[in-house]
């Protein structure tokens, strides 16, 4: 088990170095002059040079790469040329908002997707099955950007049920930061009203983010359930007169969940990467938004930093899924 863990850590470090190198090259070969952009539209050449020198952009690309990788080894992700702040500090500031959004979206995906997949399988080829299949296809097909705006217009503007954007109302002071997750921190601070407000703010973006994930979970779970429900042991259980709910929800579901779990792991990483659009529409101050605004300003260090963070969480999520696999299916533990 220790050897397994060691191998995983080595893979993690190697992958991170690979991601850093690749992103550094891609961002730096892209056209654009960040120093000129930051210097402003009227800046003279010597003003641009001042900024270029300050941020080490006057060095050759290989030199910049060596310096960057050296800094990276000490945990320094560099400095943003646009905000002038350390990238690590900014990533740590924005990451909790993204993680909170992804956690809630994932919870929605699982809580809604798994039962719907189960229902769809039980009532295969019936009206419920058709409806859920249309629902799942829509989930994959709908562009998040469009879907987000439609939800805003419907639930925030027309019905007035939920806020348009942001994490909290403007005049609400956030609770003291412990985890950075507003829902958790407000509970820890005993501020139930803030918890409720934060929940109202996260619902729409979380639904938009969860929709494709929910659809995938639903489809995979449906397919697995259909297969499992035709198994001999299920037929035997029915013959013994066990209640149909118990058969489906307990005996069949547990076996059908394995591939769903793999899907959840994959989708977690995917969600982290795709928060960009949702965060833009809902002005959710997470790392996706940070990455986009940095990329649009040719501010490369934050782009590399965010890529590394997303890569890190992606690998960690997949490792956890590997472990969960072994936990659910004892046959895999010896493999």
């Amino acid at each position, binding site marked *: 088990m220790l050897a397994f863990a060691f191998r995983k850590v080595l893979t993690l470090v190697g992958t991170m170095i690979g991601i850093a190198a690749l992103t550094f090259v891609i961002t730096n070969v*892209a*056209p*654009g*002059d*960040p120093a*000129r*952009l930051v*210097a*402003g*539209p*009227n*800046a*003279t*050449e*010597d*003003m641009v040079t*001042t*900024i270029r020198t300050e941020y080490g952009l006057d060095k050759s690309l290989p030199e910049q790469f060596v310096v960057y990788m050296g800094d990276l080894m000490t945990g320094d992700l560099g400095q*943003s040329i*646009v*905000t*002038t*702040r350390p990238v690590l500090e900014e990533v740590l*500031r*924005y990451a909790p908002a993204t993680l909170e959004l992804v956690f809630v979206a994932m919870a929605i995906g699982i809580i809604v997707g798994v039962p719907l997949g189960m*229902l769809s399988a*039980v*009532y295969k080829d019936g009206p419920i099955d058709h409806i859920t299949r249309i629902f799942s296809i829509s989930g994959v097909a709908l562009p998040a950007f469009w879907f987000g*705006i439609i939800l*805003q*217009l419907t639930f*925030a*503007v027309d*019905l*007035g*049920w*939920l*806020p*348009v*954007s*942001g*994490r909290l*109302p*403007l*005049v609400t002071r956030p609770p003291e930061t412990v985890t950075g997750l507003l829902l958790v921190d407000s509970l820890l601070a005993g501020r139930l009203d803030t918890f409720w407000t934060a929940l*109202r703010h996260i619902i729409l973006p979380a639904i938009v983010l969860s929709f494709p994930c929910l659809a995938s979970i639903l489809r995979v779970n449906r397919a697995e359930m259909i297969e499992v429900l035709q198994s001999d042991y299920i037929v035997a259980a029915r013959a013994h007169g066990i*209640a*149909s*709910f118990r058969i489906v929800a307990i005996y069949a579901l547990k076996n059908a969940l394995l591939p769903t779990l793999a899907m959840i792991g994959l989708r977690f990483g995917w969600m982290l990467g795709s928060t960009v659009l949702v965060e*833009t*529409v*809902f*002005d959710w*101050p997470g790392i996706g*938004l*940070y990455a986009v*605004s940095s990329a*649009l*300003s*040719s501010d490369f260090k934050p782009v590399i930093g965010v890529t590394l963070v997303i890569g890190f969480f992606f690998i960690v999520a997949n490792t956890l899924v590997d472990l969960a696999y072994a936990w659910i299916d004892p046959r895999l533990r010896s493999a």
Partner: protein
Amino acid sequence: MFGKILKNVAVAGLLASSILAAPADAFERTDKGNVIVFGGRQAIPVLDPHIRYDWSTRMIQQSVYDALVKYEGNPAEIKPWLAEKWETSADGKSWTFHLAKNAKFHNGDPVTAEAVRYSFERGLKLNKGVAWMLKDFLAPENIVAVDANTVRFDLRAPYAPFLSFLPWWFVVNPAEVKAHEVDGDYGQKWLTDHAAGSGPFKLGRWEPNVLYEIEANAGYWKGWPQGEKNRPAGVIYKIIREPAAQKAALQRGEADIVEGLTPDDYIQIKRVPGVVIQDHKGMTTFGIKFNTQKGPTADINLRKAIAYALDYDALIQIYNGAASLETSPLPDAMKGHVAVPGMPRKDLAKAKEYLAKSAYPNGGITLPYVHVAGLEEARRIGLVLLDNLKELGITVEVKPEQWPNMVAAGSKVETSPAMTSVFTTPVSTDPDAVAYQYHKASWGQYYAMMFYDNPKVSEMIDQARAATNWDDRAKLYADIQKQIVADQPEVFGMLQNRRWAHRDYLQGFKFSPVRFTGEVDLYPMWVKAE
């Protein structure tokens, strides 16, 4: 069994929806008073007044800092602010400013001549942001604090636009800045998200990428134009990036004023009860810049042919009428503007005449038209051009490009596209702010990506900026405008109106064309509460 579960889920959903329903908010009320919420698309990464000055940054800078003078009104005029009065020497090289004696920084320190001297020295030595405005004419050692309330600037040479830049040189409190210096950085790190000013507002919450709050400075030395009773408790600048979300926030009352809606959005939101549209003629010019040094557009006859082939009315239609055609390279609101006779308008016969005189009498060429990716109006103008130039046998390739890449390509003759759409907002009302874009010394800047070179024009621009007599300058600028139009380095398009949408309870909006795109003066604004 499952049917029962479904029914329970539906009932739970309905219950949840009724609980979630909450009335729409109005302006924010706090125990200190009403807070105005401004919904803007652009973040404020660095507040330091000598480092950055885009529109959102400058709007907050102007609120927390004061300058010697301030732009106000339409047309924009320079009004005394920290400086009560000033005089110029006969040779136009020496400027002396007399400061208001009651001006105080937020911490109570008086605003002295030394603070002004330090602020200008800081701006010049850092060599960032606003430095370009004065660095060629003013050396840090030539700023003299004559006494506690008098400061003198000795310029290297007469520079007529000097005063027109001063509203953007904000004064910082040297004591506070020096106290936060790290490794001789002039307090740059600290001033990124702190302020050391004397303005009508103090800095409140600063949540990067989310919101920036400023709180009213109750004892502001210049008082409040709306009266102490009506002044707001503060302003929250909230970042709302998408126009659709901005519109929704305004409708819901989550924002009191928004900028940057699409032309169609303005028409729709105008019908919403309680919403007011501010629609004013701006100074932002739209031009299609030709590369005048390389490729087919180096041919003046081809440039003229394109200028006469464009359907100018379509430009106005794209903005649903909220724009006006340029009558000169200088915007109408700018001092010294003259309507140049013979400004090209659509005339196909004339276009074909010029084409026949060019090196491409039958067309048969493909020209790129580059615009900023995501800027819908610029893309639609490209489509108009594409359609219009078909009649000359010229194919237009409409190419969206990210702004940084566009600027990079436009900084060199070799890489600058044949046609690039560029919006330009001058930083001052002095004609030099636009005229100098056509000086050869501006090559490499985004607004000079036409690489225009007419030595006679450059010479006249140099003469005009050094002249101390306005009549002499006005004559020179009239000639400059006519010559630039004759050389056609770009298609002179239109002046897009500046627009904001706000709730009707928001009072005190005062437009001034010299402000940048979404920028407003927050100082006189207030909420008329029932």
